[in-house]
């Protein structure tokens, strides 16, 4: 719950695309450097594939694989693994600093449901988050699939889960003056896509949620439904539009923002592990 803000700062305010990953077979934390080396030669080989000859100088890509031991929920969780690809400009090879071009991390926050059920040979890191070009995701992902016999799948977030996120994050305390809570709805069955954005002042939303939630620290489905219904009827009173007939596609609050396509942005380091716990749960339910 209390990861060091300094050490997790680089994970904030970036868009992460979510994947679920089945347990990695024969993965070992002791060999991260070797993995980096193997992966980097794999990337070099992949980039040349399909070319009879390589012409010109290829961008030099450096791979680092490291452990983020502070990113976990329980003692049973595996330490998160961070993979970073950075490039060195070929023009000035030695002195120039490396530019981060792609990063991805595997993590498991309170994923006991999964990890206690698999044999020792397997490492459970069911959630994979990616920021960077798809072509690198594909290469890195393929390498992991080939090396640790695991499968990746995009992790979508259903409207139901999004409404949970909206309710949960509304109730969270944030120190500084928070930005507005925004819900985006998409209207189905139209020739042209139509999105409705619904912004609420965070204090209003919090006040509403406080009247709905019965026991602090505990949320049940009915409360989430009531909360959303209140927001819907308020909207209906003003615009005569039934939001319940549309699809909730995006939720942004001061804590984080989440899109139904499986894209997330963390905004508060103090709530990072909390959000990751929920996402881990989603990833596990997609695997099992």
């Amino acid at each position, binding site marked *: 719950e209390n990861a060091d803000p300094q050490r997790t700062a680089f994970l904030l305010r970036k868009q992460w695309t979510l994947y679920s990953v*089945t347990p990695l077979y024969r993965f070992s934390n002791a060999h991260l450097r070797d993995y980096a080396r193997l992966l980097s030669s794999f990337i070099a080989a992949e980039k040349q594939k399909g070319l009879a000859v*390589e*012409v010109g100088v290829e961008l030099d890509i450096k791979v680092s694989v490291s452990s983020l031991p502070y990113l976990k929920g329980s003692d049973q969780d595996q330490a998160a693994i961070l993979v970073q690809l950075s490039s060195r400009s070929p023009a000035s090879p030695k002195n120039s600093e490396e530019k981060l071009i792609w990063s991805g991390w595997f993590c498991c926050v309170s994923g006991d449901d999964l990890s206690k059920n698999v044999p020792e040979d397997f490492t459970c890191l069911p959630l994979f988050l990616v920021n960077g070009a798809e072509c690198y995701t594909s290469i890195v*992902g393929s390498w992991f699939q080939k*090396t640790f*016999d695991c499968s990746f799948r995009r992790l979508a977030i259903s409207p139901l889960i999004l409404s949970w996120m909206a309710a949960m994050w509304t109730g969270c305390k944030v120190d500084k003056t928070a930005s507005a809570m925004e819900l985006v709805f998409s209207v189905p069955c139209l020739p042209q896509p139509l999105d409705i954005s619904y912004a609420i002042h965070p204090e209003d939303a919090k006040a509403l949620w406080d009247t709905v939630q019965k026991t602090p620290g505990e949320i049940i489905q009915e409360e989430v439904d009531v909360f959303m219904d209140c927001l819907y009827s308020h909207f209906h009173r003003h615009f005569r539009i039934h939001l319940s007939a549309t699809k909730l596609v995006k939720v942004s609050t001061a804590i984080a923002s989440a899109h139904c396509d499986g894209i997330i942005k963390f905004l508060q380091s103090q709530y990072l592990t909390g959000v990751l716990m929920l996402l881990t749960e989603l990833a596990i339910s997609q695997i099992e």
Partner: protein
Amino acid sequence: MQRRQSFKTQKQPLQVHHKNQTDLSAWRKGGRIDPEKNVQNNQSPNNQKNDSKQGSLEQALSYFEKVQDRVSLKKNSVLQKHLTTVESIALQSGLPPEAFDVLLNVALSGKLADTVNTRLLKSLLPASVIPETSVVSSVSWLCVSKCSGNIQLLFLRWLIAVFDFIDHKEQLHALYGFFFSFLQDEKMCPYVCHLLYLLTRKETVKPFRIRRLLDLQAKMGMQSYLQALLSLYKLYCPELVTITLPGKMKTYFKNSEGPWKAGINTVRRRNQENSPVFQPLFLGTAQPQSRKRKWNTQLIIPVSSTNTNNLEEDEKKNRVLYSMSESFRVEQLQTFSQLLQNIHHLEFPSQMGSVLTNPLLLHYMNCIKDESIYLRLYYWMGQTLQEECTWCAVDNNQDEEEFKDFLETVYKTECFLQEGFSSCEEFLYKSLPLWDGFCCRSQILRLVSWIPLSSFSEIKSHLYDPLAQFFFTSSLYFKCSILECLKELLQNWLNWHVIHLDSESDSQVHSLNTTHSELLNVVAELIHFVGSISTLALRLENNPTFLLYFILDFYETACDMYLRYNLPLLIMPPAGVFYPALLSMDSVSLNQLCYIMYRYRTNLVAAKENELSKKETVQFRFSNQTYQEYNQYITAMVGCLWTSSVFQKDIHPQGLRMDDELLKKTAVQEFKNSFNIVYHPAMMGYAVLFLQQAWPDDTTFNFSLIKGKKWNWYLEYLYAHGLKGLKVFIESSINRVSQASHSKAGNVQV
């Protein structure tokens, strides 16, 4: 054709081999496209269709071989016909190697109009390979410039598109100089560059060619295709090409595969589909690559060993890293004897998904009962099934054909291993409620038949409920498919049970008891489910014989579970199945029912004997209800077929018992015996034929003549006509005290 070729041969110092040019009739007799592909499984209608297709292609080819002057397409229907034939066959299955010589010759000779030539060139899709000789001879046509520039251009693009299909390339390499000379043509230059790029070898890089290319570059500017060729030259001979070339380009050559790419893919896919069912399993490691765009799902994974191999230089480190000793690489595994020799140091491939198409590894998997192997396969398969499922996945990128193939592969693997995958079971439970009952139907039903037998209690809501919905709302044919698949399911469960009983009989007899009774319940639930849907279906469809056949087929397995599968469980068919079969209009159903009742009797008698002799298995005693039901049915059957007393003696609540008063109202004379083996609607046909043979002169059809000795002859007559079920039934269940009195139904009760 022969003359023309020799003429060209004189003109140009080319060696044209003729050995590849077999005549067309030989091609027709022999393996059509790929001899491996039609060894089996080609049903005869298919063959006929192929034969007629080949016939028309043969005609078309001989037409194009002989065609002389410029024939106008619009006015000549013969040309139109043959052209369409070539096009449609090419698109369907590709053209055989022999066709290329003829078609290329006519297309490049300039005899026909350019529209025809274009269509011909566009339809040149190879079914297997393209003979090099036909390519060489067409290059010679190019040199004599008989055809227009556009056709030349199209030919070059075709050559690039199908380059990999040309069977040899030695002579093509010898023509490097010719192709090089075409560079001067500005229009052709990009394509010629591409072709040269494909053909270039180290020894073909010559200073004069580099100079020529540099001249061209000076003339035409920095063209990507020229740079591609130059950079290739530079790679081979860096000392000769001293200029600096700009950095990496995204594409050197414009998409020159043009109109052929899609066609080639379709043909390849279709030819794969037509291959025999088990072929992919036995092809070993050479598998076609999936043409997926998505990186995270690959349906067919090539076998490769754990990826330590590409790091030979760091072997020492690797040994520590992966603790690998002298292991035998899976890529090398090609034969069964290799498997036996190396079984002690064989490692599974890096991705377990690749075992699906590799029978040797499946054998190995069968020997090694390691949990992690199954878990790896479980995860991979579960994710792939869900990701690729055309009706479950969120994004609609899925390819139904490919998914179908995948399901087929999974099914074949299950057959091979003789066990179902739990990932597959879960997938079915998740996807059946969303299924439209149409997409991949036969594959889905086959997978259902491999759902493992377990004491899973939710099978009703997960499997039977959705299946029942499809069953009642679908065609007769689909109903029969579902019954067939449930029969397979029952058989697979029973086989599994027998195997496990064998393997566990030594060790843990005691632990069996609890789970065993649970498993019995699961099997019983299946049989009851089939009983209830069968009853309803017979009412819905009005008792068609076809449906009845599938229902009774199921009961042929169900009636024999005790003796054949050692499962202490027998469940009688419901009255809604029994009576329609007994009163069926068709002798096949009646005969089937007789056989089933005979097997029930044999099983029940054996069970009773075992109960009396062995006291310890008393917990698996059949319920009295089973015996009761059997006795009721057998009374009805004997009363119907033999003693003509069914209307009095049938005591089943849904049975045929009827008052004499009521029966008299039907105004049927002799109603009593109207269902015995002479008068039964299913049997009357036999009775008529029997009468005709026994009393050829009598035309009154006096059925009452069949009695006494004639009755026995009639029985023999029926047995001789294949009613074996009736035979075993009568011989076992009817105690014929004396030959003369056929009205005694003896000791049928058990």
